[in-house]
């Protein structure tokens, strides 16, 4: 089954007018490489209209599991087909937040170096948090990866009073440091 391609978007709240809670999940196949599997991290960056992070407190990941406004949270144990998930309460997202950038990165603190190019499969998908029904799944992004150690999987963003989701699939050879620089996240 082919999924939503890089650059394509879907009008979430137009498709599902009552949509209140999103689950953004990712599933990957590391091919048994535990050093790759163990160190992949799903994260969200809450960004303002200028495309920059609103604050360091609004980088949501395993060590900071909820944004300061409680609108975005990392789910402890992703279930279903996903490896990791984030939950976004759309009504609680502050007006100052224009987009929520969903990032997958390799945390490079261990002795073994890996890259996203070693992934055999990687998809991002969006679910309706209230019903669990899948809304959209991306194409397999893994064939586009090489030496990168971070990738912006997608963005949830405001559009004409509603919310849209776009598959991005942009890799960063500089890893999470490159992503942080792009979005003004202080490390």
């Amino acid at each position: 089954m082919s999924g939503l391609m890089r650059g394509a978007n879907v009008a979430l709240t137009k498709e599902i007018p009552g949509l209140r809670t999103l689950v953004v999940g990712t599933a990957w196949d590391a091919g048994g490489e535990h050093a790759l599997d163990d160190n992949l991290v799903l994260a969200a960056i809450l960004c303002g209209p200028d495309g920059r992070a609103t604050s360091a407190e609004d980088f949501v990941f395993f060590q900071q599991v909820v944004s300061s406004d409680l609108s975005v949270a990392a789910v402890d144990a992703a279930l279903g087909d996903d490896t990791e998930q984030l939950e976004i309460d759309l009504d609680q997202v502050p007006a100052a937040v224009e987009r929520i950038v969903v990032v997958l990165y390799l945390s490079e603190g261990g002795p073994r170096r890996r890259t996203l190019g070693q992934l055999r499969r990687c998809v991002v998908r969006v679910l309706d948090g209230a019903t669990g029904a899948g809304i959209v799944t991306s194409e397999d992004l893994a064939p586009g990866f090489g030496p990168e150690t971070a990738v912006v999987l997608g963005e949830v963003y405001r559009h004409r009073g509603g919310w849209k989701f776009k598959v991005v699939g942009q890799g960063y050879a500089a890893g999470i440091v490159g992503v942080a620089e792009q979005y003004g996240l202080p490390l």
Partner: protein
Amino acid sequence: MSTASTLLRGAPDTAPVRDDLGFLRRRARPRAVAVPEAPAPAAAPDLPVAAPSLALDLAPPAGATPPARPGRTPLPPLLRGLPGVGQGERRLLSADAPVVQLTRVQTGVGGLRGELHTAVDASVVVAYELADRTQGVVRDSQPYGPDDRRPVVHLAGPRFTVDLRQARALRRFVVVVRPADPAGPAVEGVLVLTTTGSSRLEIPLDPSDAGRTGAAADRTSTVALTGHLVRGALVLRAEHARQVRPLRDALAAYGYRGLSWRDADTVLAG
């Protein structure tokens, strides 16, 4: 409120079973980061003034956090009064200003890397305690802790790395520098710490006898650095402490008493 709890309570008894919603009934809610206590070193007679501020005050400041959303708990505020370090900033952790508190982002991204710079033959020893209270030591002959499959701390000569992807599994650590010559003086040099965001913390190692404790017959260890995970953030402290005593006693003075020793200077390999 959203997802499972709302869904299950709101579902009429007569509603048909939805096989596709199985994962929602098992969804784990987000948890706040574990809040370990900040254990003070058991023997630290020369603790600088900053040390008392490490004591936990779990009460959030009034009005500092938004109202709790059911199912989501605001993270506890970080310790107040401790300096942070900016991205790319260079900071000397002197005896007068020995403490830095990283942000949760700095605490969880990549690795915290340390390197001993010295002109003398010396070694680095890192003792650690995990969140489950198990303790261990990494050293030249045992460079991975707790194991080489997925080490939380690993050592390579004068360099060590704390894997911050596993920050939630770590409770605290201490870095000790020892001269190769048992009769030699304390090591002179600098221990340099680097974060993923290129913040650089420098801890000068002073070979003088200031802060020296123990019997003159024993090798001089320098307890250079301690790190504690407090409310999800790493608090780093330059200890500037000389311990003229066996490694076993030097580590015990900092609360590392859960180790087994082959002799007073050699930890039993785990």
